């Protein structure tokens, strides 16, 4: 089920009520585990089997890793986990994509092959929970952590519903210890958790779905040709939509966990105030970028084997990171662009290592970063390369037969929200939400909370799934 639905409100109220009862900790953990399976099966019940497979395989793989003495045996247990998880991910997420590319490859050498339509349904959240469970066996394999003490804690780590389908991608060392001791939110944590849920819901329902999605759709899902204004505003709208959608989800997830007495990590840190792309990736989808860094970039050699190997590892990581988002070459290009940006930035930082930018230069670099990030969003949002090129040409003002696509109202609303968003990110660049809330007048907090709650209800969200569910 999605967070922005009546079903979730009812579900969460029941789960929270049971979790608050004076029951033994084990019973309350079982409540959370059963609730998490219900949460997942509320989409498509049979897919819960995949979740169980992933859970069981990694549990036994980690146990095997601890018992194994020889490096070969340890590697075998690790590979079992990786192959099982990536195998499931590959079949369900990339099966159709691989088949289509294989068919195209054969056609390019003159072999006509009509592959049957695979008709594979993508299990929601599979990219997220496979990465979470893999981090469990990989941490044990890399001797960074020992396995969980009992299966219940481990199964709950994999399945815990706030992070299950769209992250933040949790590591076992972040969550399993929290299950080892009874957790129940204090009243303050409960109320603050509800405040975070409201902030996240406002981002998702009001800003992303209510006011930004339509403009992005108008530009990207149309067959009409946009001019510079429409192409930029459609892309800026998407940049706002995807941030509000995904950061909104993460904030709700953190709030939900907090209401239950658990802590989840930050997934975003005001990314549109990033100066440079390494800074951007320290602020955007932090739990994915750090996962890729720890389990892909560093094992590929990281920056330990000279510049060439570093750049190769960087590009490989970002290309695979792009592919993780979706089975389409447009996502690979998106990742590749970020890889190039990061490589160029790395080279520039070495070349001008003594350069210390002043405030204005910092702002300028920040805006350049945001503009270049928007270029990458074109490939992320467009369903085809053809449409991506059309929008890109529009952004560079080279579309000949452009027609106006967005209404005055749409331009004004998108403009206001994006300016507000970017300014907020800059003001919050070196702060946390909590540090600001600690100083704001109580009346302002109450009024802001009420306005957001009213806007959420009055916008009447139609329960749109979060964008990242498809990944």
């Amino acid at each position, binding site marked *: 089920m999605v967070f922005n639905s009546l079903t979730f409100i009812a579900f969460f109220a029941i789960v929270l009520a049971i979790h608050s009862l004076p029951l033994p900790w084990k019973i309350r953990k079982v409540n959370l585990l059963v609730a998490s399976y219900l949460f997942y099966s509320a989409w498509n019940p049979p897919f819960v089997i995949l979740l169980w497979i992933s859970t069981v395989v990694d549990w036994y793989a980690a146990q095997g890793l601890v018992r194994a003495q020889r490096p070969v045996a340890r590697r075998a247990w690790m590979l079992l986990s990786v192959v099982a998880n990536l195998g499931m991910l590959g079949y369900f997420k990339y099966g159709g994509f691989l088949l289509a590319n294989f068919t195209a490859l054969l056609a390019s050498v003159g072999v006509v092959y009509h592959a049957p339509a695979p008709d594979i349904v993508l299990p929601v959240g599979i990219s997220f929970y496979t990465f979470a469970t893999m981090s469990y066996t990989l941490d044990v394999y890399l001797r960074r952590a020992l396995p969980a003490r009992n299966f219940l804690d481990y199964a709950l780590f994999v399945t815990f519903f706030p992070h299950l389908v769209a992250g933040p991608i949790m590591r076992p060392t972040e969550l399993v210890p929290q299950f080892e001791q009874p957790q129940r939110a204090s009243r*303050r944590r409960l109320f603050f958790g509800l405040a975070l849920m409201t902030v996240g819901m406002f981002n998702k329902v009001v800003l992303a779905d209510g006011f930004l999605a339509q403009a992005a759709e108008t530009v990207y899902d149309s067959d009409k040709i946009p001019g510079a204004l429409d192409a930029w505003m459609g892309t800026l709208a998407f940049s706002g939509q995807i941030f509000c959608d995904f950061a909104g989800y993460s904030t709700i997830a953190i709030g939900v966990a907090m209401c239950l007495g658990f802590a989840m990590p930050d997934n975003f840190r005001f990314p549109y105030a990033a100066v440079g792309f390494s800074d951007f990736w320290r602020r955007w989808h932090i739990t994915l970028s750090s996962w890729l860094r720890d389990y892909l970039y*560093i094992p590929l050699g990281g920056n330990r084997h000279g510049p060439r190997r570093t750049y190769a590892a960087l590009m490989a990581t970002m290309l695979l990171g792009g592919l993780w988002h979706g089975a389409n070459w447009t996502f690979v290009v998106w990742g590749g662009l970020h890889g190039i940006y990061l490589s160029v930035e790395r080279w520039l930082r070495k070349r001008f290592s003594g350069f210390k930018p002043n405030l204005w230069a910092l702002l300028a670099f920040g805006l350049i970063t945001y503009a270049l990030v928007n270029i990458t969003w074109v490939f992320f949002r467009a369903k085809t390369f053809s449409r991506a090129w059309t929008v890109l040409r529009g952004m560079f003002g080279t579309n000949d037969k452009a027609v106006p696509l967005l209404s005055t109202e749409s331009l004004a609303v998108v403009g206001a929200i994006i300016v507000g968003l970017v300014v907020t990110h800059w003001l919050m660049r070196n702060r946390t939400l909590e540090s600001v809330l600690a100083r704001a007048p*109580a009346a302002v907090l109450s009024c802001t909370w009420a306005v957001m709650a009213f806007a959420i*209800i009055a916008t009447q969200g139609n329960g749109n799934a979060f964008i990242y569910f498809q990944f």
Partner: protein
Amino acid sequence: MHLSTSSSDLVVARSASAEARIAQRPGLRLTAADRPGIAQPVPERDVPDRRWGTILFVALVLTLLMLGAWEWHWRSFGVEPSIANTDALWATQRRRIDQGEGDGATVLIGSSRMLFDLQLPVWQALSGKRPIQLALEGTSPMFALEDLADDPNFRNARLLVGVAPDIFFSGFAYRGDVLKYTRKQSPSQRVGQWLSMHFVEPFLAFDDPDYALPAVLERQDWWPVRPGMHPRKDVRKLMVVTAPDRASHIWDKLEKDPAYAALAQSIWAQHFSLGPGMPTPARLRKLTAEQIARASVAVAKLRKRHVEVIFVRTPSAGQYLVFEDKLFPRAQTWDVLLARTGAPGVHFQDHPELQGLWLPEWSHLATRDAVRFTGALYRIIEHDTGHQIAGVAAKPLAR
């Protein structure tokens, strides 16, 4: 076994520089981005030291006050709480056929005219059986016709197909994804629909897409029209669903408020000229031929399962009727449809008892006249011409 304490030590050691950096900036906290290549520790989440209980209480009161004002505003406008005409509600009715009611049922498909104009209680009173309402506003019934044609659960039945020429013959489908939604509807969405229908919709008038915040903002007059764009207003609220089986009628504001009816007419009038973005006459002819061909195939399949298909040209009036006659002349559309499909049809212009009806905005019947229309239509189908089994009557009924 407990997670390694040594990994925690490692965390502290390796992230020391990051911590030092963060420590210089109060208000920041470490994230996984600051701790490369190590096991991540349990996150720390601070709660600002505020009186959150009081803040929440005041926020709740303010929220309720704002919602109360919003609700009062829309009730003053004439809106009453009603059942939401959602895809999920449609899915509940479509499932009735899957669950066995399709054998011997009367099913209605079409667009908004079939939805608002055909009154289920009247039909039930006359026939003893309540039809299954599957018509969808702004949507050609072709998808439903083909879906039912392929459904073996639908047999020995009667299917009334509403024909609004501009929608039926163009194949326009405002809600064309409803079938896909129905097939993929998750348990969560089903529960959500039930909760909404029982705990939200009966109480809140503003719970209607026409009064959603973005829609209200978008239609304000203060926005200038962008050069090069045509001003365009979206269709406003026109109907009320009165029962969970999608029994509906026109919203009475259209009958009582001439200004609102005029607004609805002006919105229809946007479509009456072949402006930019509208299909050309040649394109319309091609679309019409395609729709009739698809209907013929579907009707032939249904006939094999003893389903009586009856096309119904629901009433229209004023400039809307002029527009339809001009773009979709009867001889090139309706008459061809009946001839090709071999199915009988009822055209409102052929029957005196279907004349003199009031359509406040040219396209849908006033509720009182919808009652009259339903009764007359039932009698035409059942009595005036006798019960005609599909395949026998390839002609208009009682013309």
